[in-house]
């Protein structure tokens, strides 16, 4: 196998970014931002997860087929969460009218 060797400094940089983002997410959670607390925490988590997938799991250098599978996995996960939320969050938005009575 002749895979290009990623220099160690790339890994160190990604590690430093992950540690910095962890400190950031803890710091932001101490602030009272209302709904934005959730948005900020999840945005940082998605960035951290993407860094791990892209650099540490080497999807950056993976074949298109592997990338398609990786993308499909996270896409299906998104379907699960979005469809569940579209049900539970929207309950009560529309008053249950009485057209059937």
């Amino acid at each position: 196998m002749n895979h290009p060797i990623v220099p160690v400094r790339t890994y160190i940089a990604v590690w430093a970014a992950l540690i910095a983002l962890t400190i950031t997410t803890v710091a932001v959670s101490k602030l009272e931002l209302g709904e934005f607390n959730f948005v900020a925490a999840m945005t940082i988590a998605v960035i951290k997860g993407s860094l791990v997938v892209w650099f540490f799991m080497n999807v950056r250098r993976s074949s298109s087929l592997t990338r398609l599978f990786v993308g499909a996995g996270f896409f299906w996960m998104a379907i699960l969460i979005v469809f569940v939320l579209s049900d539970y969050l929207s309950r009560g938005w529309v008053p249950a009218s009485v057209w059937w009575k």
Partner: protein
Amino acid sequence: MAEIDTSLPIHAHSEVRHHFDTADQQFESSTLGMWVFLLTEIMFFGGMFGSYTVYRNLYPDAFASTSHFMNVTLGGINTAVLICSSLTMVLAVHAAQLGSKRKLILFLVLTLLLGCVFLAIKYVEYHEKWVDHHIPGPGFHYADSRYAHQAQILFFLYFAMTGMHALHMIVGAGLITTLIVMASRNRFTEHWFTPVEMIGLYWHFVDIVWIFLFPLLYLIGHTK
């Protein structure tokens, strides 16, 4: 001992199985197969993340109440420990690429140790919950009686999610131990170290699960 197929090039017999044309094709198949396994893991944890989403929306007040009992300091330290273990894991793969057996074993041992540190801290957290009677079951007790029932469901989710994650860590520790044994028996060369890469993918996946569990369980909710 498997018989050596003399029709293959001399360098190939130990590394490329007969049903693959090239080492690259073999590696590609391993990577894709590992990712398919990890997709089933995403779906497996996805079910629990889904139920977490539902119950967090059903019981927002109880969720805000229980999140005060999450130890953010220990959770944050554990997040850092796992990120460091992911770094040592990629450095192990890096060492394997360079064919350095000594460094490979060093970084695998460091990864294993960091994994054990994570589990030890997790044990301390679980012990806190045990002392506080926050483990769902007959002994469960919650100070705020308004949320006694709902809090038990939320603590159940906490233990289900972190418990399945910890179980994956224990499996990962076993896999890394296997890698250390294989490396010390000179099973890897700079041309073939696929198990190191595949178990690395598994280890990073378990890290990603924690990257999402940490904010969801420890960070959000108490500032509702």
